[in-house]
């Protein structure tokens, strides 16, 4: 299963091979002018196009989203978390646009946030209550930054209590106002 809508034939570079009609073609070419050295062992193999002897193709057993900028699924790919649920729908929508388009990246970021809530729901469905204290690593905060941690916790409790008290008082006052 994949999202392929194109084929390698849709991705072709039609290069010229005869330049005699262009006056001065190549007369200032300098092979040493290569800012990619030594990171790239330049062979200009790209000029041959997508023609290399590809590795064996991994079997596509789960849904794999594919960039619209390439003609196929890569020979190997990860299968860690296939798209699913609402976040999966957002991801599928994102992959209709290219990597240079905000319509690709912003839906993916939104999907990531939606996925967090899906994860919590999924945990409960499987009888697992997420332990936010442990998952956020706050046990380390207790070990290494106890004073600030306790101060923040106390401040948090104080602010929450103040908000609750304010809401209760507001409700009481409203209920005294004759309708």
């Amino acid at each position, binding site marked *: 299963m994949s999202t392929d809508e194109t084929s390698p034939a849709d991705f072709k570079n039609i290069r010229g091979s005869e330049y005699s009609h262009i006056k001065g073609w190549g007369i200032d070419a300098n092979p040493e002018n290569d*800012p990619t050295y*030594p*990171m*790239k*062992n*330049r*062979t200009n*193999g*790209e000029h*041959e196009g*997508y023609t*290399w002897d*590809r*590795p*064996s193709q*991994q*079997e596509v*057993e789960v849904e*794999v*989203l*594919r*960039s619209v*900028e*390439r003609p*196929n*699924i*890569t020979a*190997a*790919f*990860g*299968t*860690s*978390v296939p*798209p699913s649920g609402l976040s999966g729908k957002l*991801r599928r929508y*994102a992959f209709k646009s290219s*990597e240079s388009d905000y319509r690709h*990246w912003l839906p*993916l*970021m939104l999907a*990531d*946030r939606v*996925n*967090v809530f*899906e*994860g*919590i729901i999924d945990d409960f469905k499987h009888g697992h209550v*997420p*332990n936010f204290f*442990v*998952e*956020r*690593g*706050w*046990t*380390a*905060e207790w*070990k*290494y*930054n106890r004073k600030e941690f306790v101060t923040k916790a106390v401040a948090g409790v104080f602010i929450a209590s103040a908000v609750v008290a304010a809401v209760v008082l507001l409700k009481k006052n409203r209920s005294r106002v004759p309708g």
Partner: protein
Amino acid sequence: MLAMNFRGPFRVRLDRDKPLPEIKHPEDAIVRVLRSCICGSDLHLYHGLVPDTRVGMTFGHEFIGEVVEIGSEVKNLKTGDKVMVPFNIACGKCVFCRQELYGNCHESNPQATAVGGIFGYSHTAGGYDGGQAEYVRVPYADVGPTIIPEWMDPDDAVLLTDVVPTGYQAAEMGGIQPGDTVVVFGAGPIGIMAAKCSWLFGAGRVIVIDHLDYRLEFVRNYAQCEAYNFKEMNDPVVFIKTTTDSLGADVCIDAVGAEAAGSAAQTLTGRKMLLQGGSTTALHWAINSVKKGGIVSIVGVYGPIDSLVPIGNVVNKGITIRGNQASVKRLLPRLIEHVKSGVLNPKEIITHRIPLEEVAEGYHIFSAKRDNCIKPVLIPPTAWAS
């Protein structure tokens, strides 16, 4: 098996029942993890800055291990081999791999063309589970994985899978010439290694800029360089100009990336509101601190969307910008020599060795910079005896 499980920004946990990885491709190997680092770039995932980071994924792209199973087409490895696994997944056959651009493989990541496959680094980097687990699937096992020499300490070996090659390539991309002044922005593990490696290319002066005093103290000692806290300066760019005859540094290295501190506007738009591919403060300073005709080398990781940088100054100053994910496989032979000869001592940057079971604590310690953390390494229970 035990494995780290991402649950959302700032939330990870240890799963005890993640299914064991399987051979999915004839060139795969299954590796029993012996060491796995938490990398500074893992924090971008942990903080929710990298798009398509799915709940349930296992992170970890900097690891070593023992081969326990191989696919039918694997020829160079056998079960029992102990290997360093480069963080980039590379096929070895595509036009980019064949030109030694192993960080830019075209056959390992269907989800994006701008980046090759990376272990445990979101679906934007291929959707592979990573090595913060007891076992991991390693594709193209004949290409990237390199057998750990008998004499090598596993703590050195694990750092050769990312932090050392990335720091080394940061210096290499700077095109450093003997006598050059090199400024490294960031005193995290990559910045520390970039500063150390800058000397190997003949730098005449190495300056590191950061805002965490304990890291500045560390890099000063480890990389024998100058180190300054930008919070003690009015303007780090003016500071660098003042100390370089007003001309600027010959080479600037951005070893910070998306989560740079130092500018409220960048922090707000890049880190909090996610309107940019991260906070570009370090890159901004690098461009403005380098000399005319100088070179800026970028190894800091940024998100894929647009980022605000002073591109007009790049043109007006004639700056050359070079960046890439480190080509680990290309660099490993040279770096192994450097470790053997004692020129590089990677394991000295490890400050925390943490059981895999305490992965959530490990992430928090590294993220919140607690306990003077420089580099944490996770060790699975099955690896302690190895």
